[in-house]
């Protein structure tokens, strides 16, 4: 018999999809049975009380959580998010229900031993409820009490060599795609730079001094598997400067049907024979491909790296050899005020250790945003408020055609005095010699 009646939550289990309610009930049962004989350090019935408070919120149509707090681990301004229930007498198990964010390994590579250790620690000192992973990429441990925070932090750092992630007005935990570890399209080693910048910017990650959150995300290629372009304040999207490599024999094999298109991923039903004209050439957004005597030709100068042709015919087309990344800035995906895509700031930069050039761009952006950004203003909002030109000036980057979103978008060009020969002063008498009043 459950501790609280939860008819509204039970209804959620009736749908065809997996339900978090069933998961919570399962965890509640497992904690109650305690077959492993764990000495639980927080209330055993935390999951029951969590279900109870959620049911009450559904009934009342309002939340019973208090948001935020002073809790944290010593010296860190992020990584712990205070949560308190405003009905502690009714639900003592969740009177404290703090969240901890754990910095996920680059590329999210785990061993089962690692996962087991994290889960055992969380069963002992937390609610046992996790979120793998939060939208920023961290491992989210949901629900513990204040006295457990330092204990968990000690175990994580000393026993498991792990660290907390970012929260609050901090650099958030950098995240990346699986990169060159598994993917032939990765134009740079995403895991190497993700790890390097995480270590380099520890202070920014743990001690909040930014106007608001700040996110880095690393995508190895323009397929953008971590969607950096849509949600990172600075996104690093892999690209190449030279030509797409074409294996004409493999092109012929795709056309002849010997090789399945899209790596065979649409094999679930018969779509008919592969039609290169219809499925590749006609879909090229810049129309830069054509067939000549049965050979596939690409005008690489027009290619915008949409990746479609490479995705459809991975054996025939490969990314170029002169590889690096593009840096885009100002993306955000908030609930309020609307989402914004990244704007291209650096069209191409080499990604090579020790990443000095990249760090220079990052730090100039931070200097600008920390000084000019209003409280709770994301970089993308600051850019909109002050203009892209100002960002170029502050980062010392010269305007290039790639910065232009569309021609004739803004007919007003504002010159600065030092950009104009002779400044804004002129000799009126000299002018009158050629122009009557």
């Amino acid at each position: 018999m459950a501790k609280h009646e939860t008819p509204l939550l039970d209804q959620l289990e009736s749908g065809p999809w997996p339900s978090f309610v069933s998961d919570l009930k399962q965890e509640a049962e497992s904690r109650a049975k305690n077959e492993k004989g764990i000495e639980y350090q927080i209330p055993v019935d935390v999951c029951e009380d969590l279900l109870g408070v959620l049911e009450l919120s559904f009934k009342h149509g309002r939340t019973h959580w208090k948001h935020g707090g002073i809790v944290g681990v010593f010296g860190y301004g992020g990584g712990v998010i205070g949560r308190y229930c405003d009905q502690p007498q009714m639900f003592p198990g969740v009177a404290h229900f703090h969240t901890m964010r754990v910095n996920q390994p680059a590329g999210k590579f785990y061993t089962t031993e690692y996962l087991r250790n994290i889960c055992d620690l969380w069963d002992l000192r937390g609610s046992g409820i996790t979120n793998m992973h939060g939208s920023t990429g961290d491992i989210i441990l949901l629900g513990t009490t204040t006295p457990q925070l330092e204990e968990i932090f000690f175990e994580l750092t000393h026993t498991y060599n792990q660290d907390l992630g970012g929260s609050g007005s901090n650099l958030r935990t950098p995240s990346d795609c699986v990169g060159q570890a598994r993917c032939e399209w990765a134009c740079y080693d995403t895991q190497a730079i993700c790890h390097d910048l995480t270590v380099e910017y520890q202070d920014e990650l743990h001690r909040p001094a930014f106007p608001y959150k700040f996110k880095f995300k690393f995508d190895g290629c323009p397929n953008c598997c971590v969607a950096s372009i849509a949600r990172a304040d600075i996104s690093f999207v892999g690209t190449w400067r030279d030509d797409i490599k074409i294996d004409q024999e493999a092109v012929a094999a795709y056309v002849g049907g010997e090789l399945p298109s899209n790596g065979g991923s649409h094999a679930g039903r018969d779509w008919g024979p592969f039609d290169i004209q219809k499925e590749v050439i006609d879909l090229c957004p810049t129309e830069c491909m054509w067939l000549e005597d049965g050979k596939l030709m690409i005008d690489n100068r027009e290619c915008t790296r949409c990746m479609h042709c490479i995705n459809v015919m991975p054996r025939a087309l490969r990314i170029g050899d002169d590889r690096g990344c593009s840096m885009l800035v100002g993306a955000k995906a908030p609930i309020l005020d609307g989402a914004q895509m990244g704007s291209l700031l650096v069209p191409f930069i080499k990604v090579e250790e020790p990443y000095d050039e990249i760090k220079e761009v990052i730090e100039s952006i931070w200097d600008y945003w920390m000084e000019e950004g209003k409280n709770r203003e994301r970089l993308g909002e600051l850019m909109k408020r002050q203009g892209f030109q100002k960002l170029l000036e502050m980062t010392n980057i010269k305007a290039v055609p790639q910065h232009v979103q569309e021609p004739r978008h803004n007919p007003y060009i504002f010159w600065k005095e030092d950009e104009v020969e002779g400044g804004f002063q002129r000799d009126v008498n000299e002018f009158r010699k050629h122009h009557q009043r």
Partner: protein
Amino acid sequence: MDYEEAKEKIVAGLTKKKSKSKFYFNDLAKILDLKPRVAKKLINQMVTEEVLEYWSSGSTSLYGLKGAGKQAHAEHED
């Protein structure tokens, strides 16, 4: 500016403001009249020495004098 001077300024500046007990980082940098990067080092030290404490909503971080405001009591953390 040395640390002791900065600490005095911050404590005086924050004690003066009666209506609020939590402040943005920028407010503190303004009190010190320093660039954010420089102010950060001093403010961090004040947190380490427990003159200041962090408050976080999860999305935004604020700073306050240690123990100031209702928060600690309301959360049974004092």
